[in-house]
């Protein structure tokens, strides 16, 4: 399975209008000027895949993930990200060719996950994706600045990385 589409609404710098974009099954490159919102797309992916730490998404608390109104716009009442999975190869254990996973958070920090519109728990999302995707301790997400941390790493911390993978 792969992500065929991402939808964002009210998430960080993505405003109140819902936006929807196709992704390549292979390599999609996100490009644009400094401060345009590229890393915010990465944060959106972290978010919808069950990210538990607002700080990882460069927010003090989850309510900071809501579009703050920018320049004279209305702040968003909630932030929502949806991923459309093409499940043609049936690697996701759901009897459906398209699987839509979404997550919405409101101003109070309350969070709702959905799988194909039905409400679900975060654990269900994690279990659904576990075999194919993000093992949370995994290295499939390399955030901006992570490479520099690896460069500066001391030998003990580097070995501990192996310990944790055992």
């Amino acid at each position, binding site marked *: 399975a792969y992500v065929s589409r991402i939808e964002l609404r009210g998430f960080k710098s993505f405003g109140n209008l819902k936006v929807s974009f196709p992704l390549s099954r292979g390599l*999609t490159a996100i*490009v644009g000027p400094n401060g345009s919102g590229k890393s915010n797309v990465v944060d959106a992916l972290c978010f919808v895949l069950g990210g538990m730490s607002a700080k990882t998404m460069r927010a003090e608390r989850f309510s900071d993930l809501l*579009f703050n109104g920018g320049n004279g716009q209305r702040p968003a009442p909630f932030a929502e990200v949806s991923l459309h999975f093409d499940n043609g190869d049936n690697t996701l254990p759901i009897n459906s060719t398209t699987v839509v996973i979404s997550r919405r958070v409101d101003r109070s920090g309350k969070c709702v996950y959905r799988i194909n519109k039905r409400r679900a728990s975060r654990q269900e999302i994690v279990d659904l994706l576990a075999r194919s995707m993000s093992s949370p301790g995994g290295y499939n997400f390399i955030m901006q600045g992570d490479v520099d941390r690896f460069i500066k790493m001391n030998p003990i911390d580097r070995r501990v990385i192996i310990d944790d993978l055992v």
Partner: protein
Amino acid sequence: KKSVFMQTFNEISRYFSEIFSELSPGGMGRLVLENEENPFDGGLEIEAKPTGKSTQVGALSGGEKALTALAFIFALQRFRPTALYVLDEIDAHLDDRNLRRVAELIRRSSRESQVILVTLHDSMMSVADRLFGVTMDKSGVSNLFSVELAGLAG
């Protein structure tokens, strides 16, 4: 407990050496345990000899250190593969030639897995199947536009 560690270490070590020679052709890199008898009493060192250089300990340049760190990260990924990889600006400090080698490696992985790559560099963009352009408008809202590339450049 040590044998399970050694099994993991040896596999990642093999991936690291393979990936390092892909990124630094003619070069050689390996992971070394400070204490082979009791790994948990020591750390994990990286010995890297980039293309065309005699063994140098601790004398790598900024870009060489970045490339070596990338090889380590990619080895961890190869050990525990997933269907989706998200990489945000992993290419600072790299010169044109190293950028192209990293781009080539990522392009190859994108045949097996889905990869989303944020970059400021042309040589990285050029291996993508699809480009996502992001801009911010005057009202502080990010606008995305998507361009299918596969088949354009060939």
